Structures are given as C-alpha cells and as structure tokens.
C-alpha cells in the first residue's frame, strides 16, 4: 500500500511559489484575505483600534459629556507630554532593553530649563536647546555604561532614575517650584497655542497635507516597484488605505475645530512621530536598530557596531525624555519637584506596549506611542470626568488597561505559532 510508485511530476519551476496564496480579484478578494488574516492572527493594530472604540463607547454611553469636542482637545493636549517619553522608549524597546530613567530625566530637564530660562533669564530657545542636549548627553552616558562597561541597561537606568531625581531636587533646590514664562517653545507647547491661531483652516490644511503626502508616497513606491518588476500593492488596496487615513484625519480635524483647533503641541508630536517613523523604516540606522533588537550576535557579525547603536538609542531616549519633560512642564505651567513622577514612566512604557511594540526587541513602530497614548488618555479623561475615589480609579484604570490589551492578545494567540528555535 505504501509502495504505490507514482511517476514524478516534472513541471518547470513557476515564477511565483505555487503555495503562496494570492488574493482573488475584486472586493470579495479583500474580504477573504481579511478573514484569513484575522484567523491567522495577522491583524496589525486592528484590535487596539477596536479596544479604543469600545473605550470611547463605554465612557460616552455612561456620560454624554464624553462625546463633546472638548474631549478631543483634552486628549490632543495632554497626549504629547508622556507620549514623547513613549517615543524615546519605543527606540529602546526595539533594542529589547528598557530605560527606567525617562521620568527622572524629564523632571530634571524641566528643572534645568526653568532655572536657565526663568531664573537666569537665558534666551528661551537657547535654554530649550541646552536642555535637550543635556537629555541626550545623559542618555548617551547611560548607553555608554551599558554598551561599554556591560552593566545591564535595567540597572544603569534604575541608577539614573535615582541620580537624576536627586540632581533635579538639587537644581530646583533653593527655589522649589518655578513658574514658567509663556515664551519660546514653552508658549508653543502650552495651552493657548493652536495651529493658525485656532482658525478652522488650520486643521484641514494639516489633514490635506497628511493625506497628500501619504498618497504621494504610496503611489510613488508602487510606480517604482512596478518599473523594477518586483511585486507591488494593487491600486485598489492603496486607495483603501489612503481613504481610511483621510477619513481619520478629517474627522479629527473637524472635531477639534468644533472646539479650539489643533493644539500646537500635538502638531509637534505628530511631526516627530513622522520623522522617527521615517528614520526607523527608511534609513540604515533604523534598520540596524531592528537588527540589534532581533539578534545581537548576528548584527555584530554583520559588521554593525552594536555599542554605537546602543549609545545612540539611549541618547535618543534621553533627548525625547528632555523634550517630554519640557512639554509636561509647559502643559502644567511650572517645573516642580514632583516632575519626575514615576507614574509617567509607567504610563509611557504601557503606551508603547499597548500600541504594539514588543518588550523583547525587534518588533514595533513609533506609532505605537501614539496609539497607546490615545488609549491611555482616553481612559484617564473618562475617569477624571467621574470624580471618583482614588481606589475605584486605580481599579478601573488597571482593568481597562488590561482589557485594551486582552483584545489584542486574543487575536494574536492564533498567530503565536510555535516559531522556529
């Protein structure tokens, strides 16, 4: 029975692997592929987006105030501060490391800026520049101790967590809390700065810019791939993607315009996200970060200077912590001794992870900082509206946070294939 001898097939090698399932033409093809992807757990940020919508609906149904445009302003305004810490952390997480110092560095930076610009009356932009440089230098120091001396990053940055908090107290020392003056970057980041002074055109111009550049990028790439004869995404798919982004962008612009416009802090945040995304996906520096996060030894053997990558990534994280600190200070109007709130660290890590960046290195996007912060800010605002007791608030926050990730985990579980060793 096992001895039936078939004549071996001897077909010529086809150009495309016959086992690769192709999408059938037309809408049905999309639907089928989508179902297949969801089944296979290959669903990108879809679950988080669903989680987000569920959060919005829940809070909105329990308090109609939640659907007011001012909610969007609140979220857009408070996201960038901790969000910037999260962006820096995404870089570090991509390496498979952690930076526990971002909270302290952000607090220190606010203090440094306040002392320079307010106490000593330095030019505010120069003060900003010095502050960010300080953050980058601190990060580089962490990176150096980690990469060159070999102390685990966890310990280096835990020490940083303590040391920079001490330095912050020392810097604020004699004066304590310092009120910031509404000038320079601080003005730009604080509550009264909106794109085009809050004119409705501002939001729409941004939306048009975003959609146009995305369309230009995707169709340009399609054209080049077509010319080079390598596989490319069909026009219909690109149209769907651009369309979805367009809907998101214009709805956001519309809602924000109902209130006061797009906060400039949010614009800066988005601009930095776009830049970082570009660096990570389109430059060889970014590629090296992913490589080191995936396999340190393979990267080393490929001639990548692992130490240089580590030092630069921690320095980036330090710079973002500094900028985040400036933003938080601007948002609250003062640099104070509680600036290095460890809670900010926790929320920043949570944002990155909720948004889909792996803690184990090599997998993630800076957009996860955005998505995660959107989730967290949405929950926080919902809870803040209710004037709850602290105990209830902690409980709900924890449960909702978990729930937001459970959707994702359940969807991905099917995918968690046994992987190769």
């Amino acid at each position, binding site marked *: 029975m096992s001895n039936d001898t078939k004549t071996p097939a001897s077909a010529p090698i086809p150009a495309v692997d016959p086992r690769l399932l192709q999408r059938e033409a037309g809408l049905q093809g999309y639907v089928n592929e989508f179902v297949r992807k969801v089944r296979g757990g290959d669903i990108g940020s879809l679950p988080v987006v669903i989680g987000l919508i569920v959060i919005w609906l829940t809070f909105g149904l329990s308090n109609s*105030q939640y659907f*007011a445009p*001012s*909610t969007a302003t*609140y979220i857009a*305004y*408070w996201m960038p*501060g901790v969000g910037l810490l999260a962006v820096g952390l995404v870089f570090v997480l991509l390496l498979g490391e952690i930076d526990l110092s971002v909270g302290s560095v952000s607090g220190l930076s606010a203090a440094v800026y306040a002392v320079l610009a*307010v*106490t000593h*009356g330095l030019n505010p932009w120069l003060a900003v520049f010095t502050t960010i440089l300080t953050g980058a230098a601190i990060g580089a120091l962490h990176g150096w101790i980690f990469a060159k001396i070999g102390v685990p990053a966890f310990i280096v940055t835990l020490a940083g967590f303590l040391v920079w908090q001490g330095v912050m*107290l020392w810097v604020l*020392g*004699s*004066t*304590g*809390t*310092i*009120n910031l*003056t509404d000038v320079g970057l601080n003005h730009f980041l*604080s*509550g*009264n700065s909106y794109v085009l002074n809050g004119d409705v055109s501002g939001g729409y111009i941004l939306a048009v810019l975003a959609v146009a550049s995305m369309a230009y990028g995707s169709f340009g790439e399609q054209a080049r791939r077509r010319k080079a004869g390598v596989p490319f995404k069909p026009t219909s798919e690109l149209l769907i993607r651009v369309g979805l982004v367009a809907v998101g962008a214009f709805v956001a612009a519309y809602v924000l315009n109902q209130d006061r416009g797009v906060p400039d802090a949010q614009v800066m945040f988005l601009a930095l996200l776009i830049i970082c995304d570009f660096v990570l996906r389109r430059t060889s520096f970014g590629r090296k970060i992913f490589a080191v996060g995936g396999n340190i030894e393979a990267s080393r053997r490929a001639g990548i200077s692992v130490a240089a990558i580590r030092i630069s990534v921690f320095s980036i994280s330090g710079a973002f912590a500094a900028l985040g600190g400036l933003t*938080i200070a601007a*948002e*609250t*109007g*003062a640099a*104070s*001794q*509680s600036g290095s*709130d460890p*809670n*900010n660290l926790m929320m920043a890590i949570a944002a990155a992870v909720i948004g889909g960046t792996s803690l184990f290195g090599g997998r993630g996007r800076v957009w996860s900082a955005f998505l995660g912060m959107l989730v967290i800010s949405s929950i*926080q*605002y919902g809870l*803040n*509206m209710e*004037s*709850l*007791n*602290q105990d209830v608030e902690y409980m709900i926050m924890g449960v909702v946070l978990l729930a937001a990730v459970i959707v994702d985990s359940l969807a991905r579980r099917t995918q968690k294939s046994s992987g190769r060793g």
Partner: protein
Amino acid sequence: ACGKAGSSSSSSSSSSSTAAAGGSQVIGLLLPENTTTRYEQFDKPLFVAKVKQLAPNATVQYANAGGSAQTQAQQVQTMINAGVKVLVIDAQDSAQIKSSVAAAKAKGIKVVAYDRLAQGPVDAYVSFDNEKVGELQGQGLLAAMGSAATPSAKVVEIDGDSADPNAADFKKGFTTAVAGKVNIAYDASGLWKPDVAAQKATAAFNQLGAKNVAGVYSANDGMAAGIVTSMKNAGVKAPIGGQDAQLDAVQRIVAGTQSYTVYKAYKPEAEAAAQLAVDLLNGQSITSVATATKTSGSGDQVPSDLLTPVLLTKANIKDTVVADGLYTVAQICTADFASACTAAGLQ
C-alpha cells in the same frame, strides 16, 4: 543558658551613643517627604539654626523619608542605633509611626511630634492645626469669590493624596467652612501632583463648562501651579488658592492668577520644636512652650504648642513672608513679575 546577646558589652544603646557622639548630644530630625518645598528649604535649616543657638554642643542628625513610612521607620531605628537623645518626627504616617515611637521610648529617647501628631507615647507636639488650615482655605475662597459665593455656585475641589492623613484634615476643614455656601460640583484627588491635578481640573472644567466654574480649591500650592495653567487654557476666570506659601504661589498671588494661600509660619514652628527638643535634652520642663494639650489618634494626651496659620493674600504679603524673612522682595519680584509687583505696591 549562655547569657543574653549584647550583655558582653554594656547596654548597646548607651555604648553606641557614647561612641557616636563622644559625650556630646544628638537630636534627630525626621521629615516626611521631598515633593513639597518647605521641608528642606525651611523646616530643616530653621530647626538646625535654632538648636545651634540654644545648645551649641548639640548636633542634629537629619533624615528625609522621601514619602515612605517604611523608610521613616528605618530612619528612626538608625537614629536609635546612633544614640540620639531626642527625636523630632514629622511623621509620614502618623499612625504607622506608633511602633517606632514606642521603640524609641523603650530606649529612653524623648519624642517630639512635629507638624503631624504622631501616635504613641509622644512627649510634646508642635504644629499648626490642620483642620484650621482647611477652614482658612475655605474662608479664603469664599472671600475671593465675594458675591459669586452662592449655594448654587459651582466649585471644583482638588484634594491631596489620601495616603497622607493630613489630606483628610484639610478636606474636613474646608468642607466645614464652605458647607451650604457653595456647591462642590467636582471633587477628586490630585495626589499632591501638579500634572495630575491639572488634568483633573481640565476634565472638571470641560464637564461643568468653563463659564460655570465659580471657584477652585486646591489643597496645596504645588497642585495649584498646574491647575492655574489649566484654568488659563480653559478660560476659567475664578479664584483659586492653596497652602504652603511657596514662592511660586506668592508670585502667582502677586500676578493675580492665584487668590490666596495659607501661610504656616515655619519659623515659629521650627523654633518651637527646637526649643522643646533642647529642653527635653536638658531634662527641663516644657510647660512654658507646650501650653495646650491634644489627644492623638492613639488616645495619648500630648502637651502641645499649636500655632495659628495665616491666610495670605496680595494684601499681606509684606507683613508675612517678607517680614518673616522667608523671601526677599527681589526673590518674589523677578523680571516676569516686576510690573505686577509695582501694581501691588511691593516695589
């Protein structure tokens, strides 16, 4: 069977104290946290200076618990080991400190409760009345609201961290003072953190409508810094106040963005504590300083010196913080506040 541990040398506390202080006398000062400016900026230096003046050969050993009751318990034990004779404790947690107070007493150490009334066999207590602070805040707010203070006027209340027992006292005092006079439309904890307070306040303003907010209560000045920014952003034009008379708060009062703060004159408080500590060190009577008596949470009757807090507004800056030497006019009137200072008659 083989004898008690420690009996080979003399009693451990006495042996170590002689080793430590070489015959001189040590007073321990324990303060609770570091996110509020007052402790290391005022309380500590004022206390140390007064002790130096009263008892030149006594030394002060200092520790700050960084907001952790556990750390504070460890610090008490460290000081007991080091052979202090008197402990001045501003308890992070006035109930939890009880066992540490008992341990100190067991070694014959005298204990002065500072600012917060520690439980256990405390010898003396110096403080401001925390409920009174809350009451003053309430009065300050009502005064600043003026005619706007009606039973339907919406007030946003941002309290301190409920893990700090004082927070409840402030809240209680404030609630008593404003009960029936305004409508507390939003009430949540800002955890003593400016950013948290600012976010909660923003949520409250969105919720109630910026125009409908008639007043804002912030339990302290640190949080008020964040809330003031939120008010500016949301366009809320209503009075707000805190406590502690922090420099930034005084500046805001000058500029008109904050209405009042509660000034707890640290100098008399710290100096009274120093006086009590030195008296106890020398075995002298403390009845001249601790004239009142207060019952602590553990039921102990503690001889107390209760100071009166002062409501600080634009009108009395000169007579309070400036007169007491807390801040100089130059410190308050930096470039950003120069014109406001002139307007307020400070310069």
